[in-house]
């Protein structure tokens, strides 16, 4: 079936402003948007730029906006979108580098800022595992599936307006470590996040929950952390 792909094009070296370019592709059942981008790059326009790697939804490279929603191109079946024209844009909220590739350095910077690792002053016994109950593992289980694709942070209007905001992905990571029974860093992270660019910039708009390809529901983790701040204070 012939579909039109209306793709955002931008090359800083061309002197041209960003614009859309239409490509017509014969799409077969089973083909993903990433397959289509590959076909366009292979046979229509080799200059098309996008990121991709695993093509099975685990590396997080190919997050982009497809028909207005942030998705992984590799797990989006093109025909299932059920539109004759598919509009493909880069992730919003980040500076475009070229075509569909955006500058994710601010995203990684937020991740680094929330101390994304186990904090525990008591060193574990060498050559032994620490126990953790399946129930305690279950508390963090959904959050550990985050692939850092940036779909959530990019969908967040609070992040669009406040580039100092940590954003849902970094806050999910803060939740993931703080609620790990082996971690003692909750207090440290909360002290850092108890401000208007941290937890309180989340206005529960909940776009992130729809955007997450792993169905993590970032708002829930953020709410847990907010509640903890309040509990600790009062």
């Amino acid at each position, binding site marked *: 079936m012939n579909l039109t792909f209306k793709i955002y094009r931008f090359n800083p070296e061309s002197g041209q402003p960003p614009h859309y370019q239409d490509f017509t592709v014969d799409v077969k059942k089973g083909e993903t948007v990433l397959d289509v981008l590959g076909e366009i790059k292979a046979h229509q326009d*080799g200059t098309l730029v996008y990121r991709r790697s*695993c093509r099975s*939804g685990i*590396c997080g490279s190919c997050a982009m906006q497809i028909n207005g929603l942030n998705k992984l191109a590799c*797990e989006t079946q093109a025909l299932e979108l059920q539109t004759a024209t598919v509009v493909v844009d880069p992730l919003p909220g980040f500076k475009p580098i070229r075509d569909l590739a955006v500058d994710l350095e601010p995203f990684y910077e937020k991740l680094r800022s929330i101390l994304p690792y186990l904090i525990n002053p008591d060193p574990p016994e060498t050559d032994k595992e620490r126990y953790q109950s399946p129930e305690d593992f279950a508390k963090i289980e959904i959050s550990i599936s985050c*692939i*850092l694709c940036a779909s959530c942070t990019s969908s967040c209007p609070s992040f669009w307006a406040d580039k100092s905001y940590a954003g849902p992905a970094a806050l999910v990571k803060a939740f993931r470590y703080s609620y790990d029974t082996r971690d003692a860093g909750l207090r440290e992270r909360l002290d850092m996040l108890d401000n208007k660019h941290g937890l309180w910039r989340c206005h529960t708009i909940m776009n992130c929950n729809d955007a997450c390809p792993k169905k993590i529901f970032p708002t829930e983790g953020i709410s847990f952390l907010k509640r903890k701040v309040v509990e600790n204070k009062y």
Partner: protein
Amino acid sequence: MMVHNHEVVIIGAGLAGTRAALEAAKVADVAVLSKIFPSRSHSGAAQGGMAAALGNLDDDNWEYHMFDTVKGSDYLGDQDAAEILAKEAPEVIYEMEHMGAPFSRTPEGKIAQRKFGGHTLNFGEKPALRACYSADYTGHILLHTLFEQCIKQGVRFYSEYQVVHLIVKDDICRGVVAWDIRNGGLQVFRAKAVMFASGGYGRAYRITTNAHANTGDGLDLALRAGLPLEDMEFVQFHPTGIYRNGILMTEGARGEGAYLLNKDGERFMKRYAPTLMELAPRDLTARAIQTEINEGRGCQTPEQKAQGIPGDFVDLDLSHVSEAKLRAVLPQIFDLARNFAGVNVAKEPTPIQPTAHYSMGGLPVNVDGQFIRDAKNTPVRGLYAAGECACVSVHGANRLGCNSTQDATLNGRRTGRTIARDVPHLSWEDVPAEDVKAAEKDLDWYYQANGSENVADLRTRLQDTMMVNCGIYRNEKDLKTQLGIIKELQGRGKKIGVKDKSKCFNSEVMEAMELGHLLNFSEVIVIGAIERQESRGAHARTDFPTRDDAKWLKHTLAYQEPDGRIRLDYKPVTITRFQPKERKY
């Protein structure tokens, strides 16, 4: 040209690269270069687990693990390396746990362990519970944990840097030349120690579990620098890739009880591996599936049935396992089967076919991760490797499932420690001007390529023909045909056209460069396969169906001569505890 000076340069940011970086960064200034962002590395796609004889759920011990690894390797694995793997594996798991890796847990809170192919108790008696896991995204949680530890330790990453040239002169490695993908332009990374952790070469095949990035660049850079590659003819086909696209359905599915069924609904593995059934090693299971298909017992799509065409897949059936259990321990394959096969695994079987998965061959290293350049095990000063790009050789002719995440992490750690030990004794060497010029000339060639050949078409042709002529079953005639095809493609590869002339994020040049690597090292795979006149592990020759220890119990070393020809040499296998025997499961 910008010159960076880092004592240690690591190429690749998967499990091996990040684990090594954590060790080396304790004493040295380390830079990790990666062509994609670190957390995008393909280690993250490992699903089922990481092998270690913790014995949390049974009476396992390291000697069983070592034996299984050696037997699984069809006795081509070096037993000193297998012993180290089996002995150190538990410590490596505990260390990952201490770093915060979130493992699934047993009811009493220990690290949970599941069955995996070829892993047994008491030297083959029955399946062992040896694979430590986190649901079915074990590689993902390991990769993120190590990446986050690197953040903690302040390891310097250069993301989206493609290494284009390895600088080796007078048998001393002096650094690399890398291309800044985002901004364009080459930069010299001068180093006392360079480590490859650049992953495998599955993208030489059309049906593969591998990421687009797995084009074997690191291996080819070494080959072009006059260094050898080891055992490249051994390419593992994973038995269960999703039909037609090859995406991985973890062996953990069979570990949790999945059946393999042919078109008659028969659990055909009983005819191939009566004791271990679906939990036989991958080489055997992949061949069994291919045999079922070749002999007309493959399952058919409705279209194939209507047209009377024989089926070319078999079914992976989990419908007898409770949905609650599947959702708890195999959540990712729920999504993968739905997204890529349109299947609900709790209710219906997933069509699967064998898929190119793991590169047993690679850069020859000793058990300390030092690159060796000949059959006498002479190290190259300042050059190291670990992970899938390396050949220690732990896995020999066939790797067991869950041994690669362990190999990458464990030998990444060992290599990082070797580098930390060596760096004080290594010196800053000059970077020869001719190396810089050669790298510039290569890159310019891609930018100026204006021929009529299409990069994607050449790549597809290579991948399709490698599947057919150098896949699960091989024979001399097909392999020689394939060698001819590769020669032809190499010729056409000199006449490609690249339209994109931009400096910024030029992924068209990148893909052309990757094609150059694929075309060059694929010749080594095929030549090694032609010469090896026996069947061993993943290398199954229909014209030489048995293993021949008298002639072929040895590793292949392949060199590229300055005129481009491939020259082979061989190196003995290290045998310590277990003498080669017939493999039965």
